[in-house]
């Protein structure tokens, strides 16, 4: 039983999506995250245990390797894909309550900005941290965040901007969200963003990378 969790951890860490995926080459013809998750459920492991003891630690490890420059964006995306394959089987349990998420996280790149890689990396790290993620994509205006927040009360919001020129829109988005929902927690990130800027625009948290975002969200979960 524990072996299955360890195998799943390994599959997600190395980005082995399913049996037919040829990546990574050293796991060719092995089961991937999808098959191992199915086996774990068949063996009677709970979805919550699978999430907490395999997926979350695997994604934390992936995030750490990424910040240490041991792996790079393509590997990170493969790991996310492997996690996604596992989540396909786990997600139905959210409805029954057999699987609890830590909360909802709404993320998007602010208006005028079309960069999505950093935002996607944070998005997958947060999902791998046990949150349900609503991804608004790029060029997302305040109205879209506010509308989504109405459908997910209590959600935490993440804003990304990759250009010094679109950081101005980040400020506007924070103001607009605050105007309708002052208590909503907002975290921000992106290459040109700084702690100083975060303080100035009144966001709650500046995250220099995905793992820091997960750590911050952990402090909010259950509150």
């Amino acid at each position, binding site marked *: 039983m524990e072996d299955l969790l360890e195998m799943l951890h390994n599959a997600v860490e190395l980005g082995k999506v399913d049996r037919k995926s040829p990546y990574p080459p050293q796991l060719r013809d092995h089961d991937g995250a999808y098959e191992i998750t199915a086996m774990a459920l068949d063996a009677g492991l709970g979805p919550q245990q699978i999430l907490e003891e395999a997926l979350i630690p695997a994604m934390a490890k992936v995030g750490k390797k990424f910040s240490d*420059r041991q792996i*790079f*964006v*393509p590997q*990170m*995306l493969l790991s996310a894909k492997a996690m996604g394959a596992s989540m396909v089987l786990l997600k139905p349990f959210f409805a029954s309550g057999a699987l609890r998420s830590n909360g909802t996280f709404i993320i998007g790149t602010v208006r*005028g900005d*079309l960069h*999505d*890689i950093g935002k*996607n990396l944070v998005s997958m790290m947060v999902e791998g941290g046990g949150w349900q993620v609503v991804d608004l994509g*790029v*060029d997302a205006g305040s109205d879209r965040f506010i509308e989504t927040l109405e459908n997910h009360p209590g959600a935490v919001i993440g804003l990304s901007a*990759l*250009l*010094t*020129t679109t*950081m*101005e829109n*980040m*400020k506007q988005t924070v103001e607009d969200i605050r105007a309708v929902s002052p208590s909503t927690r907002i975290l921000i990130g992106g*290459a*040109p963003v*700084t702690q100083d*800027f975060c303080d*100035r*625009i009144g966001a709650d948290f500046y995250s220099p990378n995905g793992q820091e975002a997960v750590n911050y969200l952990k402090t909010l979960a259950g509150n």
Partner: protein
Amino acid sequence: MKTVLSGSYAEVIIDTEGPVRIIGESINPTRRKKLISTLQAGSFDYVLQLAASQIASGAEILDVNVGYPGVDDVKLLPETVMALQDKFDIPLCLDSPNPRAIEAALRAAKGKCIINSVNGEERSLRAILPIAREFGSAVIALVMDDEGITHDPEKRLAIAEKIVGRAIKEGIREEDVIIDPLAMAVSADQDACLVTLKTISLVRQKLGLNITMGASNISFGLPNREALNAAFTTLAIYNGLTCPIANPEHITTSLLATDLVLGRDPWAIRFVEYYQNTLKSL
């Protein structure tokens, strides 16, 4: 097709048949937070230092971007332009999403600059093209529009054609439109560079215009970035790229090598002289 630019006196010609011209990318606060703190303190020393080192390494045009939240770029962009042109006789590429900042900077600038940039969105075309005509500037055309970014080279070409059509109608000379085919990170999509290369090739064949791109974007999220940038830029030049926006300190050697192997450097003079001059400065 020749796009002629100028500084106070010096002329730089970007020629689809000629050697590659580098637009130096370093005057941009996105990766240089120090740039804004020094400019806000009223000091142009750092920006001048960035200009000097880029020119020494082979930049023939300088991109100037001073956009940052809280910065009044309508005031700061022209001030930076004046500080730069006071010291260096070089054409500038004025980089701002704010048409008023571009206009103010063009008023302050000597010679003929490039506006960076217009795109296929109606709002952008209406704001930027009249300014380009009024000041006789060249303009970089980003091949995206109200629909966002397409991954189909033919559609990117269609957007380029639309922008050129509108520019000509506005009274801008065709050769003053420089196309940016959009270079996206190959770490997230391993076909992204191929889409750009095909777009470059189509623009070159159908429009024959000069082509630029942010050559350092593609390697985001990967190791050995300089090797990747060099490989991609070399292929892009072969397909029609003529004036990349890049860090000359990293890429000049491989650009000169590319020009030489493409028969654009008679007697290998530029290639060898760069080596000799770099040696001298060591």
